[in-house]
């Protein structure tokens, strides 16, 4: 025996100390022991902390209001919005749209079907608002004259058919030489700085980055509460059914198996369409979906752990059934539950997205990854960034959870710390 004792005491000092210290210190010291797993846990922990801070303080990170239309629609990430400029006859004295206020029926030339029309409409609305606030007593009233090409529009302006032409500066600039009498304004008619958006804008001109940041809150809230609800119901039921087998177990297993056999999303759709839309109902629907998963895993594990010799040994020492359940079976079952939990959080976010997609989840203007994905999916050919970034966030959160779950179970599970 003495030899065995010595052999084990040959472990390095720090490793022997490791067993004697508290959880936090152990975690810090453990990086020498666990190597890569430790870094996994730390990295995913930092990642998740960041994501949680996004969810708690989205206002600090988000540059814009996620519901506000802050820019032109479908702007690619980093792309500058198009500049619409005024072209006038030289010497007309008109430098900006404001200068046209108060004049009757100004005819403005634009290209048919170009985004200039909406830019012009926005600008008109904004200028009239400013004039009203300034009590100027005048207003801007524009009448659009539509041309097929910008060339025709400029020709019309040169011929005096319209007073001004509004168009993209990039298109007008090369043509301007052909019309010596025309001048182009320097400023964009929208009056906004020509800023770009880091992750682009969506169909409604909302900032994708801000929506993603605000969406973190909803995603985590729903993902977590659904997984926690499912765990809180499924795990005790599984433990009870596995430990006291009998008619209750049979009935429970029957119910759970029939729930499990439903395709997930369809069951969630059925439940939400009965309960109605809304955050809490979505959580209930998704939790119902995952209860059988926990139940089945925990029940199976309980049945197998129940047969272990150490449970029998505990019985032979007079342990009560409840303490066998809580001290012997539950701790040996929990590692598999942690893994399912991390997967479920991610899956719940996706299911919620699916529900919101068909209109059974959250209100459509909610900044939510699922809704963004659903909306962006229709525009996939024109705007790749609409689905990419919400999707990436789901991947990151999923990855963070499963990395943390796996590596924590490696570090904290004494059975796996061998060697």
């Amino acid at each position, binding site marked *: *025996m003495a030899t*065995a*004792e010595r052999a*084990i005491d040959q472990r390095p000092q720090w490793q*022997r100390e490791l*067993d*004697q210290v508290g959880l936090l210190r152990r975690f810090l010291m453990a990086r020498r022991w666990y190597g890569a797993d430790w870094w996994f846990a730390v990295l995913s922990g930092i990642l998740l902390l960041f994501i949680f801070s996004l969810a708690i303080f989205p206002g600090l990170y988000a540059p814009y209001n996620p519901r506000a239309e802050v820019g032109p629609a479908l702007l690619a990430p980093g792309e500058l919005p198009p500049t619409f400029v005024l072209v006038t006859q030289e010497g007309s004295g008109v430098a900006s749209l404001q200068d046209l206020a108060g004049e009757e029926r100004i005819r403005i030339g634009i290209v048919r079907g170009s985004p200039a029309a909406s830019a012009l409409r926005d600008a008109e609305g904004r200028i009239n608002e400013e004039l009203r606030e300034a009590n100027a007593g005048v207003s801007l009233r524009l009448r659009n004259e539509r041309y097929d090409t910008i060339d025709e529009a400029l020709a019309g302006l040169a011929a005096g058919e319209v007073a001004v032409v509004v168009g993209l500066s990039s298109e007008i600039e090369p043509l301007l030489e052909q019309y010596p009498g025309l001048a182009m304004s320097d400023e964009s008619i929208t009056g906004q700085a020509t800023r770009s958006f880091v992750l682009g804008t969506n169909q409604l001109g909302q900032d994708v980055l801000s929506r993603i940041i605000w969406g973190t809150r909803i995603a985590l809230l729903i993902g977590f509460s659904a997984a926690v609800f499912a765990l809180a119901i499924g795990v005790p039921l599984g433990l009870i059914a596995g430990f006291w087998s009998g008619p209750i177990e049979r009935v429970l297993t029957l119910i759970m198996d029939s729930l499990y056999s439903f395709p997930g999303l369809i069951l969630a759709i059925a439940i939400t369409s009965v309960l109605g839309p809304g955050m809490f109902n979505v959580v209930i629907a998704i939790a119902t979906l995952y209860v059988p998963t926990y139940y089945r895993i925990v029940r199976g594990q309980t049945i197998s752990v129940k047969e*272990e*010799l*150490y449970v*029998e*040994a*505990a*019985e*032979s*020492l*007079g*342990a*009560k059934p409840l*303490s066998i359940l809580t*001290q*012997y079976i539950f*701790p*040996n079952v929990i590692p598999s539950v942690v893994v399912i939990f991390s997967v479920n959080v991610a899956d719940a976010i996706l299911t919620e997205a699916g529900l919101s997609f068909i209109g059974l989840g959250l209100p459509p203007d909610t900044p939510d990854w699922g809704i963004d994905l659903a909306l962006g999916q229709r525009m996939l050919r024109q705007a790749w960034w609409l689905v990419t970034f919400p999707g990436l966030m789901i991947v990151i959160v999923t990855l963070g959870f499963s990395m943390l779950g796996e590596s924590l179970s490696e570090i904290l*599970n*004494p*059975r796996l*710390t*061998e060697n």
Partner: protein
Amino acid sequence: MANQKNGTLLTVENLSVRYKTRAGWVSAIDNVSLEIRRGEVLGLVGESGCGKSTLGKALLRMLPPSSRILGHLWFDGQDLMQLSDSEMRRIRGKRISMVFQDPMTSLNPVQRVGDHIVETIQTHEPKVSKEEALERAGELFDRLGISRSRLKDYPHQLSGGMRQRVMIAIALALKADLIIADEATTSLDVIVEAQIIELLKELRDEFNLTILLITHNIGLVAELADRILVMYAGQMAELSDVYSVFKEPLHPYTQGLLNAVPNIELDDTEELYIMEGTTPDLIEPPPGCRFHPRCPYAMPVCSQLEPHFQPARPEHYVHCWLHEEIPAEFRQEVSA
């Protein structure tokens, strides 16, 4: 000490255990009656499947729900069979405890070994604080030759021999009156096994332990036990003190069992004795003596009538017609 030795600790009276299976009722233990005396080591030997472990578990009433236990277990003036489940739980660990066969799996992998002992102590003595219980565990560890620092280890950090020491420490934690050692050294290698046997011997003398030593290792019994009970097919075959059994085994089965022990001095010409046949089907055991199909001395009476378990000599009980007066009608058949 002397009168303690003589006192009876546990009386097993007509104990029968039946299991319900699809094929029918298996009679795993048939009508076993014996006494375990205070301070003795009773060796229980037999082939695999002869009911040794079932008997051990039956003493703690730890058999699966599909089984039926009949008979009485008189322990300290009360019949264990009449106790409620919660009363029985108070006996387990406190009065009778068990050391299991496989030390590798009989400790909870997610509980520190010290906590195993603390939990056992606190289950039965709720007033004891955790520190006190840990101190007692430390004392036990000192005594059993494990360093105190290992109290905080998890089971996987210990070797097989150490785990078995921990199991013994748990069994000793509450100074149980009776320790049932179910194949306690079987899964250990011979050197560690020898250490554990040595330890058990010391502890027996030191704590005046009463041990029911269930094993198929005859050598272990010879080393440790005071008395030996040989079981065959759920029945008692022979019961006596170790010396008389080894010197002069009366039951043919015991003789076969002793011959089947490998001898290190066996030379090439000698072959290891192999007993003919296998253990009988316990759903429909052979009529008469259950051993008669394998018995080299089988007589006509053996397949007809069951012998009685009675003393052939003082304190030497045997279950065989060779040592009992054969009823008249069979005697005539033989002579005719």
